[in-house]
């Protein structure tokens, strides 16, 4: 089997896995990184949202062959280190607003939120209701309203 090398959460990894296995399963089943969750496997529910070179992606829809040796994959486990703290400001906002219920979708929600705030900041503007309406991450507990509040608070501290 071919070996693939890339970076995950600041660490270089090499995996021995067929090229077409999707990154989600490389993370979860091969590397044991379980923060990104399975919710659909077809890039719809967004529970696996992670960052590739700082942008939000869904590893359930990326064959591992598409990941280059210089690529940096960040999962929820590696998010705090991107700001050199125990917790990323968005995670702290999630705690402050007690967003979580069952928690299954929340790693993906937080990763999507961080990418959204960065994207909007790059456009030199603040978060709008339309931006929040555009988030596709499913939450079957229905925590959406608190997610909106937390993103606004987290954005203020990013």
């Amino acid at each position: 089997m071919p070996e693939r090398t890339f970076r995950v959460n600041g660490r270089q990894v090499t995996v021995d896995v067929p090229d077409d296995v999707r990154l989600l399963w490389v993370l979860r089943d091969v590397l044991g990184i379980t923060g990104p969750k399975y919710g659909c496997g077809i890039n719809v529910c967004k529970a696996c949202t992670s960052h590739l070179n700082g942008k939000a992606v869904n590893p359930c829809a990326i064959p591992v062959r598409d990941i280059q040796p210089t690529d940096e994959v960040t999962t929820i486990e590696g998010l705090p280190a991107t700001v050199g703290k125990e917790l990323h400001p968005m995670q702290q906002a999630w705690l402050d607003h007690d967003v979580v219920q069952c928690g299954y979708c929340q790693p993906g929600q937080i990763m999507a939120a961080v990418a959204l705030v960065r994207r909007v900041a790059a456009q030199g503007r603040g978060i709008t209701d339309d931006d929040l309406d555009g988030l596709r991450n499913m939450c079957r507990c229905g925590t959406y309203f608190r997610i909106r509040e937390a993103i606004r608070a987290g954005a203020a501290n990013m």
Partner: protein
Amino acid sequence: MREPIGRRRFLGYVLAAPTLVTAAEIGLRPSVAAASSADAQLPSPNITNIVDLNDLMTLAATPTSGLIAVEVGQDGMVSFALPRAEVGQGITTSTAMLIAEELSVPLERVRITLADARPELVFNQLTGGSNTTFATYTPIRVAAAIARRRLLDAAAIALGSAVTDLSLRAGTIVSRSGRSIDIGALADKAASTQTQQVSVELAPRESFTVIGKPHSRIDALDAVTGRKKFAMDLDVPDAKPTMVCRPPTINGKVGSVANLTEVRAMAGVTHVVVISTGVAVRAETFGQCIDAVRALRVTWKPGTAAGKSDETVRQELERAELPLGLPPLTPTVEGKFTFYFRGNSALETNCAVADVRADRAEIWSGLKSPIVAQQTIAAKLGLPASRVAVHVVQGGGSFGRKLFFDAALEAAEVSQKIGKPVKLMWHRADDARQGRAHPMVTSRVRVSYLGGTVLGYEQRHTSVATDLGHGIGEIITGLAAQLPVGDIGFSEIFFKLSQTTPYDFGATSLLLSETDKGFNTGSMRNVYSPDATCARELIVDQVAARMRRDPYQFRRDFLHDDRSRAVLDKVAEVGQWGRQMPAGTAQGIAFHAEYKSVSAVLVEIDCRPATVNRPIREGVTGPRVTRAVFAVDVGLAVNPRGLEAQMMGGVSDGIALALTSSLHLRDGYFLEASWDNYFYTRQWNTPLELQIIVMPSTSERPGGAGELGVAPSMAAVACAYGRATGTMPTSFPINHGTLSFEPKPTVPPVPPSPTDGLNYAS
């Protein structure tokens, strides 16, 4: 619990153990004499066939069998194994709060785990009916209060002080002279060498410092850092990913498989085996399981709903509907409402880990009825129940779904067949098409009135059968024997117990009729109430209109009591009921009482074309609930912050049920296979303003809260929609008639894993 002896005085135990362990009895104690009558009232033949109730009763009859225990460790941590399932509803947090209150320790020093299946608890380990806090509120506090008492006694000796000169604060006992000792240092000194019964007084409500104050979830940090472990995150040695190739119609069976050898040779695949529900594939990764499931060529036998569709089921319901009484001579308002099938999937799909050996088995899964799961799995494996360890794992949502243990049963079967541990997970498409559903329902309501008086209320609720085969917990089981209902089915008993009319509407008659057991159904969050309440509240609006009364004032005048009126008044006041709204928008108001709790909701909806037709890729926008105000009185709110979260979730559910979420049945299968087919509320449907008001405590005891928010929210949205459009909706969700997606194929049963993920980087 034993009888309270005097005000706030209760009996409990100190157990023989090396460190301090105190306990109290949970729930009704089934006496041996009660066993025969309980037997006769058991809900489902499925259970009585498998679960040997006499065995359970014998286990339960030992003196300390029904106890739940609080343990104080030498590290100063207080531990408690909760015999319930945490699936997001916040009961580990509220349980920790009860212990922190009575034991005067910080919340951080209370460690809550979920108890393995404990068959001696009989029906006292079932998470359902919004019953957890109601059932455990007193026994947990009694155990904690006894621990406090023992620690103070031990401290008195250690510090050479009288107990009356000691105070316990934040886990440390301090004497009047200023000497102090941590409870961890007293854990062995306060222990007992023999089990003894003691009585204790509970803290009075006026002195509470933890209960009733808002607390954030104790598992929040783990959840936001990705450290919280769900069943599929567990590292059980050699438990490799496993999925099942499922039939194209509901509950179809495998006929034959054409290419077993070929699929066994696929990359990563370790095993392929036919099981009772399909063809199981075990592989190195779930991705390879998906590929193998798609590659299998299976011929299938028809299932239990062959050829059926929404329309044929509607006709079945029509035939099963019980007649209303003779038409009254007075004026009436009548309406009939249809509620289509709804999916009961959580975000975490059905899943379980199983390690079955020749003489024993071990199961890990999010389970709300672990005792029945243990008994059923043991029967399937041909093992004694005592050789099957069932571990309850925190669940990624449930909404009633985890009352069933379909994945655990499958995982056990696969593991036994191949002789290897498995980590079995359903694909999202499996969950949508072969998972549990809320049954399709019709509800007919007739109200008779004269002048300003309502003379009678009749409701005929007709439903595809709700599977209650998991047992239904101590409240219902306990009360069933006392009900003057004669020999009617268990679901009718459940319906009668859960459905009441909160209004003084004269002669009232509510009846349930069920038909067709061919579907995989279950008690979806709030069970009968969302549909029944929605139908009732819509008709209440009609009656008010007939009488030329304001919908809020009309409800207010007919509600039974002050507590009910208080929540209704609160939402009317905060939500500015009756304010001027533009054409195409409107307010709606609804009331619901259940689980000894009362609730009212006011919503505002926008049905104008500019809102309804907002473009969202692969989504349903439709009317938007722009604002919701929710007032709730659960008697005593243990954790108001957790209660708010439950009500917010109820609002999200209610919006989905009224406007967007349903399953479409065609040719014996559901068309939905994705969250972009089954339209649960998403961000673009979420209210921009949402306010939850927790009313001041009106009781010494907490009522139920986990399901309460769904029914009134659905009803309020439906009422608002009717007022905004000028037409009362009669079919739910309102968009069911329009199929808003292209159905995925049924063969293969799961869609391919996409390869274009990088194109969506954002």
